[in-house]
């Protein structure tokens, strides 16, 4: 049985979107990052890159699903198999239309401008918060038993990550499984803890896994 011919693409899924203003590197769903790849501006011929993830030889067995060493995903391990150009055969228009809804605005109480993040590139909550930490570089992540907060070390103000879901309700980040969160999150807001009193009540400790 013939094996893959070695042509793979990092960007065939996201061609057509222009990301110059964000510092985020594009990656495959699940968060693997390929150094040195450039986003294609339009659907056209994608740069072909032979992926060898985390130094492991590329799997030759079609059924194998080895975990990508770069990412610790939440729940299901992200795709380690090299993505092939043009497979599955879905037109860029459709891919982009469905994909674009994973970009959400991030607002921080007190900050003058917003940022945008693509939720799809993160494997889980921890990665998202780390990215937010990088983005609004004044924060550090403080871990509580069942939630994570971001703290501004300068004045000790605590920020609680919240999000608006599809129904328009403001929820605490971390309650639902990651994939469900990605599917329902419309925008993020880092709310000052002092204002976070009116959010939907948390489920009891230990009954919900944030990952």
């Amino acid at each position, binding site marked *: 049985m013939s094996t893959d011919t070695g042509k793979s693409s990092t960007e065939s899924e996201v061609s057509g979107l222009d990301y110059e203003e964000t510092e985020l590197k594009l990656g495959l769903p699940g968060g693997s990052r390929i150094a040195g790849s450039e986003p294609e501006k339009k659907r056209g011929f994608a740069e072909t890159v032979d992926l060898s993830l985390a130094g492991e030889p590329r799997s030759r067995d079609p059924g194998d699903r080895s975990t990508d060493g770069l990412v610790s995903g939440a729940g299901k391990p992200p795709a380690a198999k090299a993505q092939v150009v043009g497979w*599955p055969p879905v037109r860029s228009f459709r891919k982009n239309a*469905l994909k674009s809804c994973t970009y959400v605005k991030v607002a921080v109480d007190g900050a003058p401008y917003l940022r945008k993040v693509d939720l799809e590139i993160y494997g889980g909550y921890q990665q998202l918060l780390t990215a937010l930490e990088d983005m609004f570089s004044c924060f550090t992540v403080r871990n509580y038993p069942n939630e994570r907060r971001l703290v501004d070390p300068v004045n000790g103000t605590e920020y609680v990550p919240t999000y608006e879901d599809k129904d328009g309700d403001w929820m605490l980040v971390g309650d639902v499984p990651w994939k469900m969160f990605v599917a329902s999150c419309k925008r993020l807001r880092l709310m000052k803890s002092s204002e976070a009193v009116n959010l939907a009540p948390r489920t009891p400790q230990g009954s919900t896994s944030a990952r």
Partner: protein
Amino acid sequence: MRGERSDMSEDEDGGRGGAGGGDGAGDGGTDTPVPFSDQVLENVLENVLQFLSSPQDRNAASLVCLPWYRAEAQTRRELFIGNCYAVSPRRATERFRRIRAVVLKGKPRFADFNLVPNNWGAHFQPWVSAMAAAYPWLEKLCLKRMSVADSDLSLLAHSFPNFKELSLICCEGFSTAGLAVIAEKCRHLRVLDLIEDYLEGEEDETVDWVSRFPETTTSLESLGFDCVGSAVNFEALEALVARSPALRRLRVNHHVSVEQLCRLMARAPQLTHLGTGSFGSAAAPLLQGGGCSVVDLARTFAAFKSLVCLSGFRDVAPHCLPAIYPVCANLTSLNFSFANITAEELKPVIRHCHNLQNFWVLDAVRDEGLQAVAATCKDLRELRVFPLDPTEDSEGFVSNVGLVAISQGCRKLRSILYFCQQMTNAAVVTMSKNCQDLVVFRLCIMGRRRPDHRTGEPMDEGFGAIVKNCKKLRRLAISGLLTDKAFAYIGKYGKLVRTLSVAFAGDTDLGLRYVLEGCTQLQKLEIRDSPFGDSALLSGLHRYYNMRFVWMSSCKLSLRGCKEVAQRLPRLVVEVIRDRDEDDDDEGVQKLYMYRSLAGSRNDAPSFVEIL
């Protein structure tokens, strides 16, 4: 789905011949004077032949004898060119002198999946130049997979005073500036349909093309711009709709919110086709007052007595869906393929859609959603299930269960496109037995080379049953783990198959041989990542002149084999397309695209294309 021309596949309607079909009779027209009696004959002939509409009939008529050839050429009104490189614009315009409508197709279909490099070709420019000179009375133009520049659109707008209908499908190279010229200059425009095009410069300054339509009452019947990435001037759009009493089809893009949609709908209750744009709210949920509430939205829909086709739903807020209940019973066509909804959200909608014939949906609705479709939509003819997450390792939302349910509920099914992660032979066999009317069967098992997940066997028997039992089958796309046996079945039973798509399949050259020897009606063959080599390619020499094209990429072809084909078949254009990082000296051929042509090697081939 998006109008009559949306798929532009001729398989469903019985296929068409190309313009070159009757050309064997010679170049047409000598200069010796025609005797009077013959002239009478020709006049009579012309009067009769003008009623012939089908291209095959016309091609046949043109082959009878020279007077018939001339008469047919004079009376043909619609020109269909399935491959823009199969004939030169000059030759086409010299033979057919009174054309009013042109359909022109360019790039091979695999260009849609990034397999054809940018700037490969299919430029509209030489065609529009030739037509501008030859067909001043041109009314309709439909382009698919062509490279269209703003300057081409400008030439079009300035050259055809009676121009009425423009459809651009999967085209690229133009921008809102080009649209502006069309809007402004084509005063008799009835149709402007933009379907899955890729516009240039969407991130930069865009032109307000909607404002450029004539300020008087327009003759617009159809306006579709759901693929335009930039927002349009909404006030101008609303005003345009208000002064277009003939408007029946309107498809807006995702920048139009549901509140804005409400306003548009209020202006055009006579619409038959509506593309709803985002169908999501720009502001907080609609239930608050001010603007449209769900109740108001429902009332607006209820006023639409003629609505038969709904699409859009790009950012659908599920609580807005109930607003469409009033029209569901009349719908024949519903496109939910951009709506990320669950089975629970689909069920209350689909329950009302008794008359649905075309349904496009995302696999997010799962098998359960498909079961609901099967329970209600007894008249379904076409179903497409697209993947929400189009990657190989995504969670499989639909399976053999959904496929079987559809086959049991929708016995009149003619066309199916089904994306899944894995499948069973049993389910495919069941569909082959239940849906005997199938003309198009496209199963995409996204996991490459995946066997039947219950038995571990290849998917040969399933596809074999399809070609054997579905006696009207014209188009087939196969996937999953497949051996040469599957191809043997296709060659043996697929006698009507015109289009075949193969990916990651087969064992040896025998597979391709079976198909080339057995499928006598084969027109379009596209193969990728399958182990077929030169000897298989050479086994099809007797077929290639009867086909529109053959595409083979990432197979086992070599330059030697391809050169031999080119040598043996001088009227076949054999293109070897190279990737950027490929060695020029490499003996292996990564991408082969070959097609019959009366025009010889094209003179616009880029450097990465070698014509053998």
